[in-house]
């Protein structure tokens, strides 16, 4: 008796479930949604770092430049896929023999997104705005500090004068420091962009996505996609499942290389692997007593099998470097084999340094997968040579405060992503507290070297010092792995700038 009525009870539930199923099916046939395959007109890019603000000259963080640089904001010169400088808003440029005066000739037909022409005066105003705006980030201020003057010498030529010769300056001008902003938009940069790129900013759904739309006034070749959405994932695993599920078309930067196997089907996915600017450094605190000793530092480097670490931690993806220089820099030299894995030698060195009986070191690391995984690996291997490592996992703010600001650590691991960040080793206040006058001198000489050949030679010597002096353990160079579905082509392999350059992308369907 009870049973018959039991079914009655389940009727409304069954109806509800059926309704849900119907809705689900209806949803599947509806292919115009953000998921589904990319039509020529729209593209969804999965990314991990959301911008902190729309004005990339006043906010730090990699998310802003990733979405906006070269796509919404353009620079006089840009860095292409192989690391060379090419003209963008400038057709051409010349440098005076003493290296202090740069003369740029502008694209004659370039316009801002609102249709106004980009005049030499506008370029000068933009540069001066960025230089003098009190809110400009410290990094950009430092990059522009050597500019003494910028003038429009004609309607289409700009002359910039530097305090002294600098090899880094023009590279910096290809980044956020060099973007050309429409002077009409100076006061509203936090809420609206004022650039000249092939896309314009459309919407920012905080915590979720940034959407760009095609700039219909673009002065160059029209953008390929009608709209591009950068969708942000705090959890990298959520990003790979979204890719598998077809919610996104591109993973701009895969941060779980072990997940690569899921994208091996070449009929569905294209995997592009290249190098990045990210050196994963195990930093030594040079103010910590044991780590002041060269032999201890060398022992630690000998005791860690970096090849095995890369295999375990990052699925073998990435490059062993041995110093703070990625292979895309002109002064790269392969130093990866300088310290082969040799635990016996490590023990010996430790004994010679007076730590034969053991040593305990602290290792606070930020709560990022490569850092915690590397720390586990390093701790296990150092234990084999008698060094006890106390690993602590911290959120990024705590880590910045304890390691970066207070210098309260012995070992740590973090990925240094800025281009040409080898110069940071010349700053003794930087968290490594590395102070080597010889190195500092080489960096200063390199920046002001009169020729490229001399610049490269000085930089190579500097990079070698970091290795021989065991300044840090350069664990590996982060790979740049991008994955796109079969409908997309033209993705850049190497990540040499902070931009996710949409201009090279196209869809295969047309």
């Amino acid at each position, binding site marked *: 008796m009870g049973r018959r009525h039991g079914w009655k009870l389940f009727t409304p539930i069954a109806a509800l479930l059926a309704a849900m199923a119907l809705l689900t099916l209806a949803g599947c046939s509806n292919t115009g949604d953000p998921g589904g395959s990319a039509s020529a007109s729209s593209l969804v890019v999965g990314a991990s770092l959301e911008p902190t603000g729309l004005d990339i000259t006043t906010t730090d963080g990699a998310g802003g430049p990733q979405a906006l640089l070269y796509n919404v904001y353009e620079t006089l010169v840009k860095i292409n896929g192989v690391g060379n400088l090419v003209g963008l808003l400038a057709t051409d440029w010349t440098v005076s023999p003493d290296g202090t005066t740069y003369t740029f000739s502008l694209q004659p037909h370039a316009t801002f997104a609102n249709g106004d022409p980009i005049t030499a005066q506008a370029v000068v105003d933009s540069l001066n705005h960025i230089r003098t705006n009190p809110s400009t980030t410290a990094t950009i201020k430092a990059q522009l500090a050597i500019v003494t003057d910028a003038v429009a010498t004609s309607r289409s030529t700009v002359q910039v004068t530097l305090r002294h010769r600098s090899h880094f300056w023009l590279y910096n001008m290809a980044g956020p420091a060099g973007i050309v902003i429409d002077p009409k938009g100076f006061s509203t940069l936090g809420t609206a962009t004022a650039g000249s790129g092939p896309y314009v900013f459309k919407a920012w759904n905080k915590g979720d996505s940034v959407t760009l739309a095609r700039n219909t006034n673009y002065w160059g070749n029209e953008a390929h996609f009608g709209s591009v959405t950068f969708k942000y*994932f705090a959890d990298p695993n959520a990003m790979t499942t979204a890719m598998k599920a077809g919610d996104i078309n591109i993973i701009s930067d895969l941060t779980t290389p072990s997940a690569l196997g899921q994208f091996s089907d070449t009929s569905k996915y294209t995997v592009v692997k290249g190098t990045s600017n990210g050196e994963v450094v195990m930093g030594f605190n040079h103010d910590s007593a044991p780590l002041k000793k060269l032999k201890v530092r060398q022992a630690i480097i000998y005791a860690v099998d970096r090849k095995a670490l890369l295999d375990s931690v990052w699925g073998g993806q990435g490059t062993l470097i041995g110093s703070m220089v990625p292979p895309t820099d002109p002064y790269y030299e392969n130093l990866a084999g300088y310290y082969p894995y040799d635990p016996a030698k490590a023990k010996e060195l430790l004994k010679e340094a007076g730590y034969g009986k053991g040593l305990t070191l602290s290792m606070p690391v930020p709560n990022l997968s490569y850092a915690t995984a590397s720390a586990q690996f390093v701790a296990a291997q150092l234990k084999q040579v008698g060094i006890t490592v106390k690993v602590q996992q911290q959120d990024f703010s705590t880590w910045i405060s304890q390691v970066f600001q207070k210098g309260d650590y012995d070992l740590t691991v973090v990925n240094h992503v800025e281009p040409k960040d080898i110069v940071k080793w010349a700053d003794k206040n930087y968290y490594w507290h590395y102070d080597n006058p010889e190195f500092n001198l080489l960096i200063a000489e390199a920046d002001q070297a009169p020729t490229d050949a001399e610049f490269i030679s000085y930089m190579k010597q500097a990079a070698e010092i970091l290795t021989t002096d065991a300044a840090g353990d350069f664990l590996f160079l982060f790979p740049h792995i991008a994955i796109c579905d079969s409908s997309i082509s033209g993705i850049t392999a190497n990540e040499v700038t902070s931009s996710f350059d949409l201009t090279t992308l196209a869809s295969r369907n047309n």
Partner: protein
Amino acid sequence: MAITRQILGRLTTLVASLLVASAGIFVALNALPGDATAAILGTNADPAAISQLRAHLGLDRPLWVRYLSWLHGLVTGNLGTSLLSGDPVASLIWPRFGVTLSLVTLGMVLSVVVAMPLGMYAAVHRRRARGFIAATLSQLGMAVPAFVAGIVLVLVFAVYLRWLPAGGYTDLQRDPLEWFRHLILPSVSLALVNGSLLARYVRAAFVEVLTEDWFRTARAIGWRLWPALWRHGVRNAATSLITVLGLQLATVFVGAVVIEQVFAMPGLGSLLLDEVGKRDLVVVQAVVMLMVALVLIVNALVDVGYLALDPRLRGRREMR
């Protein structure tokens, strides 16, 4: 009148609770090491810049002064502005509040849908193998971490079958169908765990109903089992179940924080984890306060509702 006084008393308690909660949240969050200056200045921080920025943001004022000014803002409806972006906190919270509210509401509704039949079935057949199996199912559901359930659901329905999106969210106003499709998997994961827990209470409540004298009488005079349960049992069990639901709200909010992470949903939970990482405490404390206030207010409303409807139930808290 006695009822009015009781309701007023309950509301006074609510206000006191909100005050205590606000103080607790404020003190706990301000005890965190590091502050927003670290996130703003990042790797470029130097001591002079830090102290200048701290003064600029008003972080150098004594704790109680900051608390009072925050409290004043809460009361007057001004949640302040984000330390990092300078946006009004309310404008950061509201879009995300919709996400979490949708998830929590749908999760709660589904919990009830799962729990009622399961719990009633287990109660009716409690002496038989079927009832035992139903009870075991709810035990199993309680033991599976919600995020594991979520991952499995994504694998099956998003990655292999491609019926539903693996994550994200669409606004209800923009596209109701997409809104619902995006919510199905997250709210089911939330409901599996929560519904199992609820099913235990449902079972207990109905076992009680089944053994009541009036129910036996109803059966004796010819009411069939399920109609009797449906007509009278549900009404009687509802009182204690609604109370349990109110109390579960806090747990569900916590569950939502985790589920939002699994499904990459731009809700309050991801905002919270994000902003606490950047030490934008103005935003963090507003979010936590909002969640706590919501839970407290809902529970108070449940209580007041009972008092207004049926003063005999004023001692109902004893029933749990």
